[in-house]
């Protein structure tokens, strides 16, 4: 892979020309109707509330400082105040962002703590090359969890994401890859047949973990088989050289990842994507940021530090904004509107605000997706109670084509209609 990396990095000066859609024979067979997609972006520390939440409810709300880059999208987004997963304060609960369930409590739920994106990915299955794609720089924030209650880790390097999504192999490499897939498949076969012996003596206590192992074998077998099928179809080509001209900053690394996701959507390589802004990432390339992200959340309300924190948060939003702009500039084939109108975009965090360690009042908004958006709305019910965030997820599921009226801790669905 090293060689390939070099090739990509050296082939500078290429333009980011997107091939015409008509020539997309290399992806899955084009769907005849427009697919619905899902993009979720999350962070581990929430948002500085005074800068994130607008000051006035309603469709005509005034855009808040952190969200300023999204001003152009004001009519096509819904920001919801007062949502939560009813978690006590402290770090470690934000990993329940997309399910409302902590790993420790997962056994009590049929889908364990499976995250919304993975639920969508399961729904799509092998209709597309990659059921879901997750990316982050440095490390993830533990946002995606599979139906087994196991973390799904993001790809943490733009180059690796590129290789994963777009790198086409030479015929020779393909042959090697095929052989390797087959060799691995034979090993899995062997593991499978050994398994009976191990399981024979297993007590009830053991069985759970053994089942997990056995499921893993089966899933990997399926996945290898899928990969072998896809191996013959070329991936779309994408030029990321532009993103690495001059110094690589976290801004252009994130932009590269978002662009790749947008293009993967466009070419129907995948329909579910997640991007994470991790805690440990060094955000100091951003103008005015000198401290660690976490350090900035514990600002003791010092003005300078709050400013640094808001810079980081605005940076995250700005990266997303750029991607939404791109999605909105592409017409959806086989349907009305732009790609953004067919992409449900969710931004949020499982933590309300790091400064107080509060897991109430989560910063959340939905954009695009063809919803009849409502601007800034109050999530509280008549008695002033916060809305379970899972209510929103039920709405998103329905929009995604999953006919369900409940999800984990939901008590209903958020009223957000779509055409």
């Amino acid at each position, binding site marked *: 892979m090293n060689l390939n990396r070099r090739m990509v990095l050296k082939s500078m000066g290429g333009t980011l020309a997107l091939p015409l859609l008509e020539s997309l024979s290399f992806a899955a067979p084009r769907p005849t109707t427009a697919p619905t997609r899902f993009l979720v972006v999350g962070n581990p520390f929430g948002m500085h509330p005074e800068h994130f939440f607008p000051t006035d409810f309603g469709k005509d709300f005034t855009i808040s400082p952190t969200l300023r880059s999204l001003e152009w999208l004001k009519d096509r987004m819904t920001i919801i105040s007062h949502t939560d997963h009813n978690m006590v304060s402290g*770090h*470690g609960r934000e990993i329940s962002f997309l399910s409302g369930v902590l790993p420790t409590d997962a056994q009590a739920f049929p889908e364990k703590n499976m995250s919304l994106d993975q639920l969508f990915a399961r729904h799509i299955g092998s209709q597309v090359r990659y059921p879901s794609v997750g990316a982050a720089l440095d490390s993830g924030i533990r946002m995606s969890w599979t139906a087994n209650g196991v*973390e799904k880790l993001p790809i943490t390097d733009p180059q690796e994401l590129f290789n994963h999504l777009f790198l086409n192999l030479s015929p020779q490499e393909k042959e090697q890859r095929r052989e390797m897939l087959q060799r691995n498949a*034979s090993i899995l076969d062997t593991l499978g047949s050994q398994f009976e012996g191990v399981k024979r003596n297993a007590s009830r206590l053991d069985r759970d973990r*053994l089942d997990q192992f056995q499921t893993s074998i089966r899933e990997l077998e399926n996945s290898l088989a899928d990969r072998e099928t896809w191996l013959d179809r070329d991936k779309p080509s994408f030029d990321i050289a532009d993103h690495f001209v001059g110094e690589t900053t976290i801004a252009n690394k994130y932009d590269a990842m978002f662009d790749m996701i947008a293009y993967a959507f466009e070419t129907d390589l995948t329909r579910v994507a997640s991007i994470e802004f991790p805690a440990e990432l060094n955000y100091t390339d951003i103008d005015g940021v000198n401290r660690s992200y976490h*350090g900035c959340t514990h600002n*003791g309300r010092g003005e300078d530090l709050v400013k640094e924190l808001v810079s980081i948060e605005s940076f995250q939003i700005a990266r997303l904004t750029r991607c939404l702009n791109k999605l909105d500039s592409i017409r959806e084939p086989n349907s009305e509107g732009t790609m953004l109108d067919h992409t449900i975009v969710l931004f949020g965090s499982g933590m309300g605000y790091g400064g107080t360690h509060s897991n109430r009042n989560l910063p959340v908004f939905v954009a695009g997706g063809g919803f009849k958006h409502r601007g800034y709305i109050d999530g509280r019910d008549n008695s002033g109670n916060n809305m379970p965030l899972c209510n929103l997820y039920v709405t998103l599921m329905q929009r995604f084509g999953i006919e369900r009226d409940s999800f984990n801790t939901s008590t209903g669905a958020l009223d957000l209609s779509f055409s």
Partner: protein
Amino acid sequence: MFRTARLPSAFILDSFMNLFDRILSWCIVGALGFGTALPAFADEGLIKMHCGKCHSGAEPKGDFSVHDLGTAPAQESIDLWTASLDLVKAGEMPPAKKSQLTTSGRHKLVEFLSDKVQSYAAQSQHSHEIAPRRINNREFKNSVRDALLIEDVGTHQPTDNLIGDSLYEGFDTHGETLGFSNFHLEQYIDSLRKIVDATILDGQQPESKHYEIDSRQIRSAHTSQNLKRPERRGKREGFDFLDPKELAYFEDFPVVPTTGWYKISIRCTGLDRGYYEAEKTGIYDDDPIQLTVVMGNRERTFDLPDNNIVELELTEWLAAGTRLRFRYPTDGLTLRGNGNFKFQNAIAGEYIKEHDPELYQQVADSIVNKPGRRVLRPESWHHWVDFWRGPRPRIYSASVEGPLFDSWPPARQVALLGKNPSVEDAASILEPIAERAWRREVREGELEPVVQLVQSKKQSLGDVAAFKEGIIAILASPPFLLLNTDDLTPQEEFAAKFSNFLQSTIPDRELREAVEAGDFESFEGVYEEVQRRLESAECDPFLKTFPYAWLKLNDINFMAPDPDRYPHYHRKKVSDDMINEALTFFRYAVEEDLPVTEFISADYSFINADLAVVYGIDDAPQDSKLRKYTFTDGRRGGFLGMGAFHTVTADSLGTSPIHRAIYVMENFLAIHPSPPPADVLIEEPDIRSARTIREVLEAHRSDKTCASCHQSIDPFGWAFENFDPVGSWRDAYDDPTLEPVSKRQRQKRPKPEGIPVDASASFLNRAEYRDIVGFRQLMQSKANSDRFIRCFVTKLLTYANGEEPDDYTEIEKIVAKSAEHDYHMIATIAAVIDSPLFRETSR
């Protein structure tokens, strides 16, 4: 303080999560909602009389009602019983102010509670079995190494692709948190393939080559992302290491081309040690100049003599694809500017200005400022790059030869597969490997699927390569990747667990046989083996990993001290020194077999020059080596005086007695306060206000709901208020209303007087202290020492089992055994291993 009262969700922590940072304020809430349907009071009299007054009614104190105890311990109330016992025993409940309990009365109450707890334990059929778990990445690397009889998994970073292990309470042994998925399995197979490929060589013996490297063929690889600048090359007189971040490499040998033995020799020396003042370079005069040879994930560091050419020789098994790099390992050369090396060059200018004014003037005169460009003053670093004479290693020349082989196939391969392995003999060849890997004898017919796999691959891959597939299958299988399954007999399981506990790897044959022979059925047998193994230097994994996890050292920089206010901490990477201090102390205590209580009672620790700066010590040797140092002020020594603890529990700008109290309680006293109820709104700290932390926390005393818990928690933390966020002593807080000032400003004006620190507090049992000195004495009381031992035992079991033990009675038995041996370390560890809680047997 009631164990059940904590919310389980609070304890899934990932690697970067600092428990003590999670929350500003905690309360002890015995929030158990089963008080309604329970029968009468627990005891006729005692409990009712001494506890009932506060702990009853609609709003009992600490949210604990004696009703919750029921008449006798039951599964859901046993933790309340043991917590009550602990508190009464320690004299902390009932509080001295509210009760006239006499010593004999207390004794009776303790006896009553303790009888009840013990009789519960005796009649309950509690199973100590622990569910199987995946081996973690550390164990994977060691175990594969030992199953394949190699020195390590290989230099080509074959395990870098593994999915990182999430931590639970700092430990990487928790089954639920480790998880297992198809992603894990796939990464394991990939990783195993890479390891096996670099271990078993197929085909013709590759030819060896000799590379002579001239100093001008050594280059410095890019440190920044800017790839446009040309790489620096060595000069005729040698390649000098300047920036410690710089990695140098040989132009003709950047990457190992073929797996095999390589002989590397390097002619080099150390130059200009102490030429500049240590205060400027940040490199201590007594530290030797070193050179590190980086071979992928294997590193060797050498001390270089000053100005004397030495020829370093290495013979290493290197895997194809391994990058060969060299660097100057030092934490210095970062004190100028933002820490980037280029700013150090100004030191050369200052030196010349002082020692060779004429030259200085010449350079200053030759500066031509271009119109429209920034005017660079003579002292600016730009002019002095060519004059740099900081401490640095120099390589004159080098040679690499390889791949070399003792025989073909290499001896290590012959040891594994034999000289000419044939798939016909697959079963007998693979059996010893499987036996090691699976930690037990191979059963009849069990290898059949693997043998079939190997035989089926012969045609396409050939004999040797077919064996590789078989080995991967053996190592990707559940008996290898899963620990603690019922697949093992109790003896096999004990051997596996024992080996994993001390060495994080599969058991050797000797150990398995000794267990089989019954050698470890007694405490004495276990004791001898633990002692023998600890002495044999094989137990590094335990000596490093356990204290690291126990003391939550992974979190030390999750909330790092503010870089503007604590520059020394960042510039000299002091967190590394702090971690090493804690690990060195732990190793010392184990190797010297000291009493466990030494961790909190010692008046000494292990410090170097960087830590001496933090601790305000001026008589420590000027180098980076950690040495035993005895503190005479009664403030430091042992864990309670360590910067690692003070830092891991502090925010970047301030400290919180509550964080530190929680840390002390959970990690040193085995008390688990519960987080405050979800509806408590926690005030965000406000550095703009001039209130001290004591004033901010006044709410805890004035608000009844908070106070009932916090009066038991906070006294464990106030004592540390004299230690700032990096653990330096302070008599006064910095005035928080003042903006942080630059270094230059600081030097100019005297430090403004701050608000004096008040580090006193009193406990509910009337014990009180004025400052850390008094607190340390209280920590050595019988009750607190007992708690510390119990906590240590609990942590050892958490490391061994991945789960925190909850059987109070069995833990007490271990503590009693430890007491018989005056709490000495090895006896205590042996008592843990000998316990049913480790053996997973029922009583």
